[in-house]
């Protein structure tokens, strides 16, 4: 009896190790990840293409039960979901990857919106440029603001950043109200849109037509996802995860934590600015009313709900947070209360969110993952053999 125990333990270890290597603890949606990882490359591509086609087709299909009509126009609702998803992807870099709590993300969104307005609206006296150029410009300007805010505060402990960003979010809204050049509640009308005219002479990207805007937003999301995904799998991503898990340990291991925190903050801010510019283009009007800190809380809720540290989770969270008040208009007034309570409950019972962040071997490819789990299995097997041999050797003299 007692000789059997070590073997049994190693088998248990083998099981848990291979399970961990193949996608974390047993978890909700965990099975999906395992199935995904076991798929062949071409299967993954096929799956992705089908999902993408469905995503692009969504506003045209306007499916029953899912549609937000008659309360809200469905293509425009889709566009808003896409904007929230983009915001969540950007905020996920800050909160999810680097573990910095940015509570004033709306400020960067506002900066992006105002950039688009300042450079395209006839109400602005600045020089005018084509709308599509304001997208990279908004990204750059928001990044600059991110660096300006991050430089003094990122050297400090994380919680100071939370309160400073919270203040910053409120300050940008106040400045938009009291600085005469920002035009307060009067705002900027006729913010630009991408070029192109439909056959009936109307611009393709009109305020009332959500479909092209949605396609533009989804395309932007895909581009940003590719960029962020590459960062995540690189040295930068590994540094972010190290900082999130233990900043002091990361610093000791030679990670320049301040530099990488600033990068995360700036990239997050840039994506926030980009989404703000997109939003301003579709709505066609920018004033000081949309940028309250409460919306900032919704952004954080989107990332945390979806699963902070996971891109897919962030998109899902962003889309859900935008979708629920649009679909269920009866509870739209309570959305802050609902998402506030969701935050508390999630933190207690499921801090990792709907789709948990990958905990293991984040930086390696799937092949490497397989190889490592094979290696572990082989090692465990050889240990078992050794134990069996030792047992046999022990057993022989007895007989």
């Amino acid at each position, binding site marked *: 009896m007692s000789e059997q125990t070590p073997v049994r333990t190693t088998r248990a270890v083998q099981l848990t190790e291979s399970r961990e290597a193949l996608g974390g603890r047993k978890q909700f949606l965990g099975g999906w990840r395992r199935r995904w990882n076991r798929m062949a490359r071409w299967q993954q591509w096929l799956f992705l293409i089908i999902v993408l086609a469905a995503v692009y087709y969504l506003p045209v299909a306007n499916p029953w039960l899912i549609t937000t009509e008659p309360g809200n126009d469905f293509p425009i609702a889709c566009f808003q979901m896409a904007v929230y998803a983009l915001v969540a992807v950007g905020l996920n870099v800050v909160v999810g990857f680097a573990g910095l709590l940015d509570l004033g993300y709306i400020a960067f969104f506002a900066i992006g919106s105002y950039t688009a307005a300042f450079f395209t609206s006839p109400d602005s006296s600045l020089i005018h440029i084509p709308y599509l150029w304001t997208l990279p410009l908004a990204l750059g300007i928001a990044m600059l603001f991110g660096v300006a805010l991050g430089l003094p505060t990122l050297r400090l402990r994380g919680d100071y950043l939370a309160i*400073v960003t919270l*203040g910053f979010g409120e300050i940008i809204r106040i400045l938009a109200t009291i600085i005469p050049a920002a035009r307060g509640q009067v705002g900027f009308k006729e913010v630009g849109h991408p070029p192109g005219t439909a056959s009936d002479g109307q611009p393709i990207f009109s305020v009332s037509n959500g479909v092209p805007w949605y396609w533009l937003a989804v395309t932007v999301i895909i581009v940003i996802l590719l960029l962020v995904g590459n960062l995540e799998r690189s040295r930068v991503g590994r540094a972010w995860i190290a900082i999130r898990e233990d900043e002091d340990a990361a610093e000791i291991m030679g990670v320049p934590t301040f530099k990488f925190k600033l990068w995360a903050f700036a990239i997050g801010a840039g994506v926030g600015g980009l989404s703000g510019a997109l939003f301003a283009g579709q709505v066609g009007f920018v004033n000081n009313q949309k940028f309250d800190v409460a919306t900032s809380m919704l952004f954080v809720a989107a990332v945390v709900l979806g699963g902070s540290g996971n891109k897919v989770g962030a998109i899902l969270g962003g889309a859900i947070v935008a979708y629920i008040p649009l679909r269920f208009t009866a509870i739209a007034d309570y959305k802050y209360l609902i998402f*506030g309570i969701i935050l508390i409950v999630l933190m*207690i019972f499921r*801090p990792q969110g709907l789709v948990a962040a990958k905990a293991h071997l984040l930086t390696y490819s799937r092949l490497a993952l397989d190889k490592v789990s094979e290696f572990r299995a082989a090692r465990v097997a050889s240990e078992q053999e050794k134990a069996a041999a030792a047992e046999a050797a022990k057993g022989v003299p007895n007989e």
Partner: protein
Amino acid sequence: MLATLFSLSAALPASVSTDNSWINFDVTSLLQNFWPATFDGLTFGAIYALIALGYTLVYGVLNLINFAHSEVFIMGCYGVVFTLTSLGFGPNAPNLSIWAIIFNLILAMLVGMVFSVVTAFVVERVAYRPLRRRGASRLAFLITALGASFSIQYLIFLVRGSNAEPAVTMFIPTPIFQVFGAIIDSQQLTIVIAAIVMMVATDQYIRRTRVGRGIRAVAQDPDTATLMGVNKDRIIVTTFVIGGILAGAAALFYVMKVPSGVIYNGGFVLGIKAFAAAVLGGIGNVRGALLGGLLIGVIGNYGQLLLGDSQWTDVVAFIVLVLVLLIRPSGLLGQTLGRSRA
């Protein structure tokens, strides 16, 4: 909306410009109204300081920015307004003897304290304690604090709607004496003196009593304190309760100063400013909270005079916070709660 909350009692001509300018400096206005603005700022500062104490104590013990503290405060404000309204106070000052007014105000303050303490207690029990039990990460605590803050805000919104509560005037401020040509009235004097008395009492309570020693011990090292026989959970609850009591007192003074300022999200920006005050004085430092609060109040008023719009007070307070973090992150008195000795 918040613009009305922070406007100076001395009505100033608002310099509204129609051109597309960015920022106008109005130095003459600042110089002319320097002393009235100073004393008015000190009054606001005393209120900030009382709220800042709640932040500072919880931060000292739990190392957590308790975002929900601004809602603890605003709940106190609702308690004060409900009490005063049911006692027959209204937009016009009541015609009562001074002793009757003092009795009514103390009653209102007690009810406000009860509202605040209950809120703080519930937040600690429902939101923070389960997290402590599970050893959650720092980020989880902050997100929970944020969630608690918004839940309470919009719970109030559900019950009371988006409008501010009707104004309650407690008494008409009467001039008492003059300093540097600025009139100091009974309201300012009441607020500042009462606030300072409460701060000194808190300071002494933490320095001299047994519970105060427990608070300092937990702030220094929670695990060792537990080994030495300190009941950590009870100390943490006590800290939240003390913060709630001070917030309830601040609520009375705030309603006195800004009668129409009780609105569901009215605590939010005030909370940020109070936290800025706590950081300015040195977070975790009880005396620092007083200094920081008074400074934030005064500086905010100067900023408002210089830049011409009452909303600049918030912007200036925020800029002060960032500058302090940049130059002296540990604050002016830079001492933690654990290190202050009896």
